């Protein structure tokens, strides 16, 4: 029995590995992945695995851009008529473009949006409006925190996709790199406009970034 147990993992590995390339071609459409997992064993085809990776990437990025939109909307609701208005409006417009792009990608790749969208709708607006009530510097601090989280997140996505298959994900990589640069720019604008002088800057920044990490974790999965 011990011999069998020792052989089993090796067997499993070699069987699934060898059949991986054929699986996608020969059995596409005959069993959905989950059904196969239950009855005929896990089949982690490159096609199946790649789809899961792209799914997550697009779902979480879409949720992120959607949230960022709502944050800027909240900030504009409070500070729209102040001196910071035009700056925030310009950053918001760029986020709108980002969201539009991810909407298109979502339809093209047939990715399901996260269930938590209504929640991010409200939470984003509340965060934006709440930090804006602390003043212009508070709003900028929020921007810095969020944009830093987002650009770190985009960077790790770029790393993941590059490790997977740079050729296959060329278009997606290009888009993410572009957006990462835009977010970096927003981060710098936030710093320029006095984010660090905001009340309780370091606590605010840490709390917001923790929230962003949680949001990213959940949106990837749910």
């Amino acid at each position, binding site marked *: 029995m011990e011999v069998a147990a020792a052989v*089993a993992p*090796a*067997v*499993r590995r*070699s*069987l699934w590995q*060898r*059949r991986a390339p*054929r699986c996608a*071609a*020969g*059995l596409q*459409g*005959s*069993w*959905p992945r*989950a*059904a196969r997992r*239950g*009855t*005929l*064993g*896990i089949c982690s085809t490159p096609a199946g695995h790649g789809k899961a990776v792209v799914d997550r990437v697009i779902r979480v990025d*879409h949720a992120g851009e959607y949230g960022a939109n709502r944050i800027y909307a909240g900030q504009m609701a409070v500070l729209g008529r102040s001196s910071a208005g035009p700056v925030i409006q310009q950053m918001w417009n760029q986020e709108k473009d980002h969201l539009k792009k*991810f*909407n298109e990608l*979502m*339809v093209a790749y*047939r990715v*399901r*949006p996260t*269930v938590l*969208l*209504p929640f991010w709708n409200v939470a984003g607006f509340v965060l934006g409006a709440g930090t804006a009530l602390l003043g212009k510097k508070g709003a900028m601090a929020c921007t810095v925190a969020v944009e830093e989280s987002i650009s770190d997140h985009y960077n790790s996505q770029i790393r993941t996709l590059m490790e997977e298959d740079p050729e296959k994900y060329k278009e997606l990589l290009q888009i993410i790199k572009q957006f990462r640069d835009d977010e970096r720019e927003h981060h710098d604008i936030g710093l320029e406009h006095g984010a660090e002088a905001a009340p309780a800057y370091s606590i605010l920044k840490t709390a917001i970034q923790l929230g962003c990490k949680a949001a990213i974790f959940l949106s990837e999965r749910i």
Partner: protein
Amino acid sequence: AVARCQLSPPWRALQASAVLRRVSDEQKKEPLASSSQQQFDSHPADHQPEQEPQGPRPSYTGQGGQESEDYESEEQLQHRILTAALEFVPEHGWTAEAIAEGAKTLGLSVAAAGMFHSDGSELILHFVSQCNTKLSELLEQEQKLVQLGEAEKKPTDQFLRDAVEARLRMLIPYIEKWPQALSILLLPHNIPSSLNLLTSMIDDIWHYAGDQSTDFNWYTRRAVLTGVYNTTELVMIQDSSPDFEDTWRFLENRVADAMNMGNTANQVQSTGEAVVQGLMGAAVTVSS
């Protein structure tokens, strides 16, 4: 039988291939090759005749391409057995007997039915998966015709009606035994698979209907269509009208309800927005 059910998938695969080898050793090699002419075969394009390996087969960690072919055709063989078994479902139900009869028509021993669960789960899941694939192909073809300009684009409600009707019509040959299948699909160990098959079918239908929602509508639309499909399926099981006309009428009404739901939701939202604006206006007036 209990020990068999507790085997983990790799071991079942090993046992399965052991059964196959014993079986093919007992009989001539012809019957396996002739199965490629089976009309029930669902994988004509990918089909390869079963290659009987020439040498001894000591381990699975060998590097030969024969292993992968042999392994691949084993799963294909399982699909072939299940497809052949469908012919016997009206008589035997979704059971191991039907699978055994299917195996017999492929020239295999009835022991091949031992590869599968004794409750017929795999047979039903295989059938559902096959139907979903057929539906996808049908919708894909329709979409091509529309793109080429050879057909009119249907309005959404008619598209949904036709898609659900086409899918449910595939149940007609097995409608007597379908209640049994439904109850088996609801068994706890089958729920992940059956739910997955159902959701991917509904997603397919909406995709070809042209759904491009990227917000919560994505979920509401699929939930509504799932409800329509399931209720219509239940009506169909009890329907005794000629060509199931009662079922299709029920379907038409449900789809109309679903469309109305969408319109009502929009109306509620507009009304809500108008009310809020009215209140804001009143507040401004009062405060000034």
